[in-house]
C-alpha cells in the first residue's frame, strides 16, 4: 500500500477520532444543539435571572417579543421581570410536557405563560438524541424483514455508542450556527434567528400605529378559578384536554409558580375554527381544578397587516400583541402570591 494512502487514512482516522472525543467532552452543548426545545432549555439554564417563561408552538414564537413584554411589565408594575420566549416550531404535547417538567423544577421562574391552542396540544413524539431509535413494536406486529431489523439495530448501536452519530443533527451547518445563538442569548433575542422571515425581520419595521380604542376593545375571554364555581357539564374530553390536564398536573407540583394560559390571536377568517365552545369548556374545567388562568384571544380577529399568515403574527403584530398581553397580564406581576387570579382580575 502506498505510504501516501496510509498517511491519508491515518490522518483521516485521527481527525475523526479527535472530533469524537471533542463531541464526548462537550456533549452538553452538542445535545442542546440537536433539538430546538433542548436549545431553549439550555438557554433558560444559562440565564438564571429569567423569571418569566413562555412555552408554545410557532404561534407563540411569532406572537411574543419577550423584550417588549418585560419592558411593558416594568413600566406598569415598576418590577423587573426578565422573560424568555421558549416557544419553538414543531411543538406538540410531548415536547410541551418535556419543557413543562423543566419549568416546574426551575427555581428561578416565577411565571410560566403557556400556549393554549390546538397545535401545541396535539399528541407528539420526542425525538431527542438519547432516545432509542428502535421502535417498541409488539412481537406479533413486527415486520420480520431481516434486512430492516439488521439496519435498524446497527443504526441504534451507533447512536448509543458514537457521540458524532448521537448528536448528528447538531453537525448540520444551520444548526451549528445556533451555537452563536446559545452564547449570545443574553444580548440578542434568540428567537430572532428562529422565526420565519429573517430577512424581513431584519429590514421590516415593528412599529405599530393603532387607535387607543383598538387596544381597549381587544379584550380576551378571561377564565379564572374565581369565576368558575363548578366544572362544566357534558365535557367530552379528547387528546387536547388530556394534554391540558397532564401539563397542569406537572405544574401543580410547584406551588410557587404562577401558571397562565394564553390562546394567541389569529386572522378574522380563522378565528371561528380556533375558537370553539369545546375549548372554553376545557379551559373552565382546568381553571376550576388546577387554579390556573386562561386568556383566550382566539375569538378576536387580527387585521391582515399584523399577520404573516392566517395563524401567525408578523413583526408588527408581535410588537402589538406583546404590548397588549403585558398590559393585560400586569396584574399577575404585582401580587406576591402565586396563581393570583384575584389580583389579575382586579
Amino acid at each position, binding site marked *: *500500500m*502506498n505510504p*501516501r*494512502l496510509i*498517511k*491519508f487514512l491515518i*490522518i*483521516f482516522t485521527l*481527525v*475523526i477520532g479527535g*472530533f469524537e472525543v471533542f463531541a464526548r467532552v462537550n456533549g452538553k452543548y452538542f445535545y442542546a444543539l440537536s433539538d430546538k426545545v433542548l436549545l431553549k432549555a439550555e438557554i433558560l439554564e444559562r440565564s438564571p435571572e429569567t423569571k418569566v417563561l413562555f412555552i408554545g408552538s410557532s404561534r407563540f414564537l411569532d406572537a411574543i417579543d419577550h423584550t417588549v413584554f418585560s419592558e411593558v411589565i416594568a413600566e406598569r408594575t415598576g418590577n423587573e421581570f426578565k422573560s424568555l420566549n421558549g416557544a419553538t416550531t414543531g411543538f406538540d404535547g410531548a415536547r410541551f410536557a418535556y419543557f413543562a417538567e423543566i419549568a416546574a423544577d426551575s427555581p428561578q421562574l416565577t411565571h410560566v405563560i403557556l400556549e393554549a391552542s390546538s397545535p401545541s396540544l396535539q399528541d407528539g413524539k420526542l425525538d431527542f438524541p438519547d432516545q432509542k431509535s428502535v421502535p417498541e413494536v409488539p412481537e406479533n406486529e413486527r415486520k420480520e*424483514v431481516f*434486512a430492516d431489523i*439488521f*439496519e435498524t439495530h*446497527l*443504526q441504534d448501536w*451507533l447512536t448509543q455508542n458514537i457521540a*458524532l*452519530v448521537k448528536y*448528528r*443533527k*447538531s*453537525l*448540520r451547518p444551520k*444548526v451549528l450556527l445556533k451555537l452563536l445563538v446559545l452564547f449570545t442569548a443574553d444580548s440578542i433575542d434568540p428567537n430572532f434567528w428562529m422565526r*420565519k*422571515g*429573517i*430577512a424581513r425581520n431584519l429590514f421590516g419595521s415593528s412599529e405599530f400605529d393603532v387607535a387607543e380604542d383598538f387596544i381597549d376593545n381587544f379584550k380576551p375571554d378571561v377564565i379564572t378559578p374565581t369565576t368558575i364555581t363548578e366544572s362544566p357539564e357534558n365535557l367530552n374530553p379528547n387528546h387536547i384536554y388530556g394534554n391540558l390536564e397532564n401539563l397542569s398536573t406537572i405544574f401543580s407540583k410547584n406551588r410557587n409558580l404562577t401558571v397562565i394560559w394564553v390562546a394567541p390571536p389569529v386572522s378574522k377568517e380563522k378565528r371561528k375554527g380556533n375558537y370553539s365552545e369545546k375549548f372554553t369548556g376545557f379551559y373552565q374545567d382546568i381553571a376550576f381544578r388546577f387554579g390556573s388562568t386562561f386568556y383566550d384571544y382566539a375569538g378576536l380577529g387580527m387585521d391582515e397587516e399584523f399577520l*404573516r*399568515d*392566517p395563524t401567525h403574527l408578523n413583526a408588527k403584530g408581535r410588537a402589538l400583541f406583546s404590548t397588549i398581553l403585558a398590559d393585560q397580564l400586569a396584574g399577575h406581576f404585582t401580587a406576591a402570591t402565586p396563581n393570583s387570579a384575584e389580583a389579575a382580575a382586579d
Partner: protein
Amino acid sequence: MLFNSITFVLFHLLFVALYWATKSIRVRQVLLLLSSVVFYGWYYWPALILLGVSMVVNYGFSRWIEVATEKKKVLTLAVVVNLCSLSWFKYSKFIADNVVAVLGQLGLELESPPMNDWLPLGISFYTFQIIGYLVDVSRGQVKAERNFLVFGVFKCFYAQLVAGPIVRAKDLIPQLKERHVFYSRDFQLGLYYLLAGLAIKVCIADTLAQFVNHGFGDPGALDTGTAWLTLYGFAFQILSDFWGYSTVAIGLGLMYGIELPLNFNLPYLASSIRDFWRRWHITLSEWLRDYVYIPLGGNRRWQNRNLFLTMLLGGLWHGASWNFVFWGAGHGLWLALERVSPTIFPKNRFFKWLKIFLVFNGVCLLWVFFRAGEEELRAAIAGNDNVNGLQVSLDYFRALFMPPFQQAGSPPETLMFILLGFLAFMFFLGKSLTDRRFLDWSMTRQVMLCVLLLFLIIAYADAQLDFIYFVF
C-alpha cells in the same frame, strides 16, 4: 441494499478487503459475483430468480448470436425476449389499463385484468445494458463472453446494477479479466467519490425532497413564487439524487480498481438541449444514440423523426405513464426544433449565459411531467391507483402560470437559501468530480474535505430515502 445505509457501507468495505486480500483473478470474480448476488437479494431474495434466469438466457443468446449464420434473426428473438420480460413487469398494467379505457370509450365496458404489480429493482437498466451487449456481439464489436463468471459480473456488478451507469461490454469485461494491482490513487479517489456521492444524495437531494414532495403533493395550494421555487428545487433534487448515485457507483468501482463511465457533467450549464443530453445521464443518451437513433436512420434520413422517436422511447423507458411519454416527446420535439432553427444569438458571454438560463428553464418545465409521473408511479407502488400524473402536471402548470400570481402565504425563504447554498456546493464538488483534481490537492485539504463530507453524511442521513431512479 441501499447505498445510503450503514449495512451497505460495511458490506462494501468487507468485500473490498476480501477482494484485495487475494491475488487470484478467479477468486476476485467469484467475490464480485457473490457480493452482487447478496446486494441484489438482500431485501427480496426472489428477485434473484429473475436476475438468474435473465443471466442464463442472455448468456445462451450471446453465444448463439456469435455462431449463428443469421445473426439478425437470433438477435431479434433475443431482444424480443428481453423486451417481453421488461414489458411484463413494467408496462403490462399500463397497456391493459389503456386498452380497457379505449374499449370503454367505444362502449365495451371491461374490468382491468389483474396484472403484475411487482417491479424488479433495476430491470430497466440491466435490460438495456444486456440488449446493448447482444447488439454489439451481433455487430462483431465484442466477442460473446465464454466465462460465465465474468458474464455474470458484467450483468449484475452491484456498483451499477440498480441505476446505472449503463456500461458497455467492451469497457467493463476486459477490466474484469485484468489482474488489478492495488493502486492507492484509485482507492483514495474512490473513497472521495463514495463520500461525495453520498453527501450529495443525503444532504442535498433528501433535503430538497421534503419541499418538493410537499409542493407536488398538493400543487393547487401553491402560489406562483413557491411553485417556481419548488420546480427549481426538483430540478436540483433529481440532479443531486441521480448524480449522487452515479458518483457513488464510480467510487465503488474505483475501490475495486474498476473504472465506470461518467454519467453527469454539469448538465444545467448546457447552452442547448443537444448539449444538455451530452451532459445528462450520459450513458443512457449514448445507448439511445447507438442502439435506437442510428438504427432508425440517424443523421442519414428522417433525422427529426428519428430524434423524436428516440426521445419518446427514452421517456417511456423511465416509466409506464403518459407523463413520461409527454416528457420524452417534449425533449424530442425540442431537439428537432433546435436542429432546424437558425442561430439567432450572437456568440458572446452574455448570450451564452442567456442560452444557459433559457435551456435550464425549458428543462425545468418539462420536469413537471417527469415529477408528476414519478408521483403516479410511487403511488401505484404503494397500492394507490388514484393518482393521475397528467392531472398533477396540469395542476402544477396552473400554479406556475395562472393568476392569482400571489396568494396569502410566506415565500419559502428556507428553500431559497437552501437552493443558493447547494448551487455553490454542487458547483464546487462538480468541478472536483469531473476533472479529478482531488488527487492534486494537498493532503490537508483532502483530509479536511473528506471529514467535512463524512460529517454532512452523518448529519443528514436520518431519513434514508430511496433514490428516485429506483422506481424506474
